[in-house]
């Protein structure tokens, strides 16, 4: 019996495999990529048409509710149980079904993350609400994050719709410029999701979903807002097209009563008088002017100036500075359009305190 391995075949194959064998841990994404389309397992009739659509945006904090997560509220929790995640998702779905938006813009949604028990939250929400279609773009996709036990992660933004979604793109936003190379490699890569909703009674209706940088200390967010406005301008230039652009901009409106949240965000273990990255907006007060000047906000700036707190969408409970009963202390979440909002149709859903660290914002848009 004689076994001979042919080295003329074996060596080239081996060399080829070695060359191919350095898989990157992190997906760095192209500037523009196709977004991932989803479909509910229970499609319901989506032929109904209306003159107005209810649009809602919500940062759902990856189904973590108000657990004391290490990354954003001075907590020590990292990996949730499956039961915790499904309980939080059930509460989110229940609220969504109460409000019944026609199109929902989501931020911080996990599809394959260890921290949220690897539940595909988009598919879960599609299957537990009346939405038929979804589109997802990741902004943090790594086989392994070697920090705090995070492990595998795939988190991003999503758009859920009653109607079919087409032309869905993931548009990369500028990366944070204030991080070292290693941190930046493993860190979030923010993006915009741009998609066309195939409404039965209106052509050229677009949705832009964004989640801008949270803790940057340079002009990263300003650059990201410029990118968003650029995409909005492109749609505006399409004859007859209207869009809704929204999401978590991690920025306060121009003219806010308070611009510094160092006291509110400081963790008990921090140095007294220290300020966490991203807590001081004092030098960023003008950064949303272009968006407000060019497009219509679901919450008009005048209304906001008349009563800031009524429109607050974010708040964490880190210290005694923040009142547990009224944790909202800043507005970070927005909806804009080049069309028309139904007057006084906006709502900032501050009753959702236990469901996320962000409150959803909704408003009706005229589509006919």
């Amino acid at each position: 019996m004689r076994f001979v391995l042919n080295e003329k075949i074996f060596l080239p194959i081996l060399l080829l495999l070695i060359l191919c064998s350095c898989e990157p841990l992190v997906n760095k994404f192209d500037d523009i990529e196709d977004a991932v389309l989803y479909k509910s397992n229970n499609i319901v009739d989506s032929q109904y048409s209306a003159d107005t659509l209810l649009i809602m945006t919500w940062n759902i904090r990856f189904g973590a509710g108000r657990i004391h997560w290490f990354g954003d509220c001075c907590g020590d929790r990292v990996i949730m149980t499956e039961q915790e995640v499904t309980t939080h998702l059930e509460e989110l779905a229940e609220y969504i079904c109460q409000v019944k938006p026609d199109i929902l813009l989501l931020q911080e949604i996990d599809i394959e993350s260890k921290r949220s028990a690897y539940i595909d939250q988009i598919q879960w929400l599609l299957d537990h609400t009346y939405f038929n279609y979804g589109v997802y773009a990741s902004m943090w996709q790594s086989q392994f994050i070697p920090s705090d036990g995070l492990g595998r992660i795939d988190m991003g933004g999503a758009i859920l719709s009653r109607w079919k979604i087409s032309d869905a793109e993931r548009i990369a936003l500028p990366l944070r410029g204030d991080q070292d190379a290693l941190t930046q490699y493993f860190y979030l890569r923010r993006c915009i999701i741009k998609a066309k909703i195939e409404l039965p009674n209106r052509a050229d209706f677009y949705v832009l979903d964004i989640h801008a940088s949270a803790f940057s200390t340079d002009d990263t967010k300003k650059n990201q807002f410029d990118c968003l406005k650029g995409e909005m301008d492109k749609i505006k230039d399409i004859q007859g097209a209207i869009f809704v652009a929204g999401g978590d901009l991690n920025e306060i409106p121009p003219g806010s009563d308070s611009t510094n949240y160092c006291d509110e965000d400081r963790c008990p273990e921090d140095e007294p008088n220290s300020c966490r990255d991203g807590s001081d907006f004092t030098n960023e007060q003008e950064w949303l002017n272009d968006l407000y000047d060019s497009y219509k906000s679901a919450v008009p700036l005048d209304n906001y100036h008349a009563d800031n707190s009524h429109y607050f969408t974010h708040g964490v409970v880190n210290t005694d500075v923040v009142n547990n009963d009224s944790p909202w202390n800043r507005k970070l979440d927005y909806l804009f359009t080049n069309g028309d909002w139904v007057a006084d149709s906006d709502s900032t859903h501050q009753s959702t305190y236990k469901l996320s660290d962000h409150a959803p914002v909704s408003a009706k848009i005229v589509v006919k």
Partner: protein
Amino acid sequence: MKAMKKIYVIFFTLFFIACAFPMNAQWSSGTAYTLPKGRMEVGLFQQIRYGQTETREWSTHPILDLLIPNLTVKKAWNTFADWNFTTRHNMTYPTPLLRIISRKGTDGIISPEFDIPQMISLRNEVLLTRKFKPSFLITGKAGLTLAVTSDELDERTTIDLPIIFPRLGVYYDGYAVNFGLDVGGDLNPRFSYLTDVDIFLLPGADEYFAFEHKSLIIWNKSKKLQIMFGYKLVYGEYPFGTQWHLLPLFDIQWAREFKKKK
């Protein structure tokens, strides 16, 4: 603190790479042969091995021993119909390493919210090797690993990476089995090759199956030095689903002969 972090990262990387070389070229211990008495072999990433007698070999990873104490003994038994028969027994105590990588910050591999209990595992393997002419070895192996823990290990502590996940799975379910087949031989007087497949089964787990295959080209610089490079292909079931990985392999091994006492 930064120096300590680097040390932790080095230990974890060593653990990862050392696991990628569980079975080695015929120059060393991938077969049912034991090292000759007095011969010691050591690799950059692999275990140090020593032939105590012509039929008994001891091995351990000297650097990893500081945080993941481990010891292997390999005993050659009789030959059956030209097949060499050997058993291999390994004891591993992973608790110190897992406790160190369970931490806050940029080097935390496991979330610090979990307690890591005391754990120990015992792997027992049977190896059968037959040599065919001109220079071709085939080795079959099968093993059973048993583990005990002082308390239940939370399932959220899994490290969901190739190579590591199936090897730590035994601490969650108490037992695991593995099978493998190695073939190796000479390409020419200077170069040899090794290719193998290993299958890991975790009968008590939802993530039940892992498959590993590696191929190595080994440059036999001399009887005391060899350099190997190749790849490892891994398919496995993880808590998130299944995934293929292709990983590079590289190692350098040295050998030393100690004088035999007359």
